C-alpha cells in the first residue's frame, strides 16, 4: 500500500506540473510573439487553454491503461479457472439409461478403484453389494476411505476403475437428475441453508405435505425440537436465523434425506454429534423408517452400527471382512480389533 502510494506520489505530480511548466514555455515564447505582434492575446489564451485540456486525458490514460491491464489479468484468471474445472460427464438425455420403475433398488460396487487427483489410491478394488431392504454399515479407521466410498454412489466423484451400479445400471449411464433423485444423502458435516426449516426439509421432495415432514422429523428424533421453535417449521435457520447445534443439524439433515423417500440412502456418520441416549431412541425408530430401502451407512460408533444388518470393514482400500456384526465379533478379526471390548458388548 505504501509502495502504491509512493508510486502515485512520484508519478502524478510530473503530470500535474507538466502543464504548469509548458505554460511557462508557451508564455515565454508566445509572450514574445505577442510583443512582436505576430500573435494575438486570444491566440495565446486559446493555446494555453488547449494545453491544459490535454492534461486530463494524459492523466486519465495512464490510470485507465492500468485499470484495463488489471481487468484483463483478472478476466484471464477467471476464464482459465472456468476452463480447468472438469465437468462431470453426463450421459446425453436421449441415450441415458433409466432405472426400473419399482421403488426398490440395489447398490453394487464392482471392483471399484478410486484415487483423488494427484493422490495415491484410496480404494483399490472394493466389491460390495447392498440389497433393497438391507442396511450395510461400512467401518474402518479414520482415513480408510469410508466417506470416499459413499460419495461415489451419488456420483460426487466417479471411480477411476470399476463401476458403481444402482439396480444393475452403471451410475455413469444414468442422467444425473435421475441418479440423484434415486439417492438421498446425509453428509458427515450436515449442510443446511439459510432459509426456513421447511425449505431445507423439502429440498429432496418439494411436494411433501406437513404430515410427511412431521413423520420424517419424528424418525430423525428432531420433531420435539422443531415443535419447540417459536415459528416451528417456518423458523429461519442459519446465519440470520436460529443457530442449531451440531446434533440438531445432523438430525434435520437426516430428516431431509428420509423425506426425500429415495430408494437408496447414504448415511455418512449421521448421528456422530447426537447424545448417546437420544441416539439409541433414534436408531430404534429408524430401522422401521428405513424399511424397503438400500442403505449404506458409515460410522465409528457401535451404537449407530446397531442399525446394520451387515457390516463391511474397509482397510487398505479393500473390504477385508464382511458379515453380520454378531458373527464378526466372534471371529476376532479386523472388526473386533476396531471396536475392542465394545464389540463383545455389542454381541450381547
Amino acid at each position: 500500500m505504501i509502495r502504491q502510494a509512493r508510486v502515485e506520489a512520484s508519478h502524478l505530480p510530473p503530470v500535474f506540473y507538466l502543464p504548469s511548466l509548458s505554460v511557462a514555455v508557451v508564455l515565454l515564447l508566445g509572450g514574445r510573439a505577442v510583443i512582436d505582434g505576430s500573435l494575438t492575446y486570444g491566440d495565446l489564451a486559446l493555446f494555453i487553454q488547449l494545453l491544459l485540456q490535454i492534461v486530463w486525458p494524459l492523466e486519465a490514460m495512464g490510470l485507465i491503461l492500468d485499470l484495463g491491464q488489471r481487468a484483463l489479468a483478472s478476466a484471464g484468471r477467471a476464464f482459465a479457472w472456468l476452463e480447468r474445472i472438469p465437468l462431470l460427464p453426463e450421459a446425453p438425455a436421449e441415450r441415458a439409461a433409466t432405472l426400473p420403475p419399482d421403488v426398490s433398488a440395489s447398490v453394487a460396487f464392482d471392483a471399484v478403484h478410486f484415487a483423488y487427483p494427484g493422490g495415491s489410491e484410496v480404494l483399490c478394488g472394493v466389491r460390495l453389494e447392498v440389497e433393497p431392504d438391507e442396511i450395510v454399515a461400512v467401518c474402518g479407521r479414520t482415513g480408510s476411505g469410508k466417506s470416499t466410498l459413499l460419495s461415489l454412489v451419488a456420483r460426487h466423484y466417479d471411480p477411476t476403475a470399476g463401476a458403481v451400479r444402482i439396480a444393475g445400471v452403471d451410475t455413469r449411464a444414468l442422467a444425473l437428475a435421475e441418479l440423484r433423485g434415486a439417492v438421498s444423502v446425509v453428509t458427515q458435516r450436515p449442510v443446511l441453508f439459510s432459509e426456513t426449516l421447511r425449505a431445507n426439509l423439502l429440498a429432496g421432495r418439494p411436494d411433501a405435505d406437513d404430515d410427511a415432514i412431521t413423520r420424517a422429523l419424528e424418525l430423525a428424533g428432531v420433531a420435539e425440537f422443531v415443535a419447540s421453535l417459536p415459528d416451528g417449521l417456518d423458523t429461519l435457520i442459519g446465519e440470520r436465523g436460529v443457530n442449531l447445534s451440531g446434533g440438531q443439524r445432523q438430525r434435520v439433515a437426516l430428516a431431509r434425506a428420509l423425506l426425500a423417500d429415495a430408494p437408496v440412502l447414504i448415511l455418512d456418520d449421521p448421528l456422530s454429534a447426537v447424545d448417546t441416549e437420544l441416539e439409541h431412541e433414534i436408531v430404534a425408530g429408524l430401522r422401521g423408517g428405513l424399511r424397503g430401502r438400500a442403505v449404506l451407512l458409515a460410522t465409528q460408533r457401535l451404537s449407530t452400527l446397531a442399525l446394520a444388518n451387515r457390516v463391511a470393514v474397509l482397510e487398505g482400500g479393500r473390504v477385508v471382512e464382511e458379515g453380520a456384526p454378531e458373527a464378526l465379533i466372534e471371529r476376532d478379526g479386523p472388526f473386533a480389533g476396531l471396536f475392542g471390548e465394545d464389540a463383545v458388548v455389542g454381541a450381547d
Partner: protein
Amino acid sequence: MSALTELAAPDGSPRAPVPTGLLSLRRFVAQRPLWVAGVLACAIGEALAQTGSWLLVRVAINNGIARRNMATLDLALAAFVAVSVSGFVLYGIMTRGMARLGQDIVVGLRRELFDHLTTLSLRYFSEQRAGWIIARLTSDMDAISDVLSEGLPTLVTSCALLPAAVLALIINDWRLGLAALVVLPPALVLSRWFQRASTRAQLDVRNRIAVVTAHVAESVAGMVIVQSFRRQRAFRGRFDELNDANRRANVHAQRIVSVFFPSIELLGVISTVAVLAVGAHLLPSNQIGTIAAAYFLLSLAFQPLQSLSEVYSQLQSGQAAMTKIGSVLDEDVEISSPAEAIVPGRLNGHLRLDRVRFAYGDHEVLHGIDLTVPAGSCCAIVGESGGGKSTLAKLVARFYDPSVGAVTVDGLDLRELDLRAYRRQLGVVLQDQFLFSGTIADNVRFAAPEASDAELERICGLVGLDRVAARFPDGLRHQIREGGSGLSAGERQLISIARALLADPRVLIFDEATSNIDRPTELLIERALDRLLRGRTSLIIAHRIATARRADQIIVVERGTIVQRGTERELLAVDGPFRRLAAAHVIGAGPDGAAERRGDGSDRAAGPPRRPDASGGHAGAGGHPPARHAGHPSARGRAGGAAGGGHRAPSCPERPGPLSE
C-alpha cells in the same frame, strides 16, 4: 469565510471536516505531532504554490507582455517555474508522509483491536458471531485503510487548495472573484445532494454485493447437498435474482454520478463566462493577465469541490467502519486481573466453588453450585448436554466470572489472582480443540513455547502422539491446516492432551470428546488421559462412564444444579440420575430395536464371564443390577485390556505427587 469552512466540511457541519467516528483516530495522529505538522505544512505550501503561480502568470502578462517588457516577462516566468517546482516537491513529500501516516494508523488500530479481542471475556464471543468479529478486522479495516491512503490525502489537499484558490481569486481582483463565486451557492447545494444520494446508493451497492457473496459462499460450502438434492436450478434462480438487484443498484449509483459531475462542469462554464464578461467590462486591456489568472484560478476552486464529493462516500463508509470497530474497542474487558493482583506461586490446586450462580444475559444456567475438589484429586462432571457442565468448567478456567458466589483455588478468589499467572498453571483440553495452522509440534508447543525438542518428543511419546504422527511422512513436523482438518477428532484431542501435558499445569480441565473417535485412537486417549491426570487437580466433563470411573468423586449436573454426588460405587448403589445415565449408555438396551435384533436381554447375562476381571473389581461390587452394569461397554476396564499392558486406572492414579514423570 464561513462558506469556505462549510465547503471544507463535506458533511456540511462547519467544524467537523471528518465525520466523528473517524475522529477517534485522532489519538494516533496526536502521537506524531511533528509528522502531522510537517505534512500539513507541505499541503498548505503546495496549495499556495499552485495558486500563487497563476498570480505570477498575471504579472508575466500584465507587466511583461502588455508592457512589452521582456526582462519582467523572463523574471516572472522564472519565478513561476521556481514556484511550480517547489510545489511539486512539497506535493511529493506530502503524499509520502501521508502514506506512512495512514499505514501506521492502520497497523496501530489493527493491533489495538486484536489485543483488545484477546482480552475480552468469552461471553462476548459466545454472543457475537465469529464472522462479525472477523469483518471488523478485515473489511472494516480495509475501509479505514482506503480512507487513510486515498481519501485523506485528497481531503487534505482539497481543503488546502480551495481556500487558497478563493483567496488568490480575491487578491487577483475582488470584483472578478465575486463574479466567479456567484455559482458557489448552487454548487454547494448540488454537492450536498450528491453526497447524500451517492452515500445511500453506495451503501445499497455494498449490501447487495454482500448478499451475492454470501449466497455464493453458502452454495459452495453446501455443494454436495445442492447437487444431491438437485437444487441447482433453484439456487441459480436465486443467484440471478440477487445478481440482478446488484446490477440495478450499480446502475442507480452511476446515474447519480452522471448527473452530478457534468452539472458541476456546467457551473464552471457559467462561472467562466461571468468572469470573462465582468473582466471585459471592468478591466482595461492592459490588465488582460488579471482575467487570465482569474480564469485559471477558477478551475482550481472547482477541482477540490469535485474531489471532495468523490471521497465523501469513502469517508462515509470509513466512518461506518470506524463506528463498528469502535463498538468492539468500547466493549468492556470483563475478565481482567485486578489492579493489585495476587501472583500465586506454585498452586496446590485446592478448588472450591462456593454457592456459584451464573447467567448468560438474563438466563441463569447455574443455580448455586457448591463443590470442593481437594488438591490433586479428580472430579468428574456428568449429566445431559445443556445442563451446565461446560459452563461450570469455564468458570474454573475463569473464562467467565460467576454472577453470584466465588470460585477459589487454594483459598484465593480467582478474581483476586493475576489472570496470566493463574492461566499459566491451568490446562484446558476441549472437546474439539482448535488447532492452528503449523506443524503438529508447533501445536503441542503452543502453551509452552520454550520447551526443548527432546522434551517435546518425550511428551509426544508418552501420549502416543508419535504413533499418530508416524502416519505422515514428516512425522511431528507434519503441517496441519487451520482447524486441523485432515486429522480425526481423536487425533486432534491427542494433540491437545500433549499440549496440556507439556505445559505441566496444576489444575486441569478436560472435556471429553463425544464423537467420531475410532477405537484404537480412543484407547490412546484413555492412556494419555491417565498420564495427564496424575498429580494434578482435575475437572473432567465425562461422556462415558469409563472416563468418569477415573474420578475420585463424580457429580451429576442437571439443569444448573448438582443433583447427585459421590463415588461411582456410591452412585451406582442408589437408584438415581447417575444410574439412569449409566444405563442409557448400554448398547442394545435402547427401548426395543437393537435388543430385539440381537436376541433378547437374557443374552446379556453372558457378558461378564467373557470378561475375566474387570477394572479393579468395580463391576461386581455394590448393589446395582449386574445385568445393566455388565452390559455397559466400558464396564470392562477398556484402558486395561485393549491398550495392551497399559496401566489400569480405575481412578486418578498417584496423587498428589510431584510432576516428575
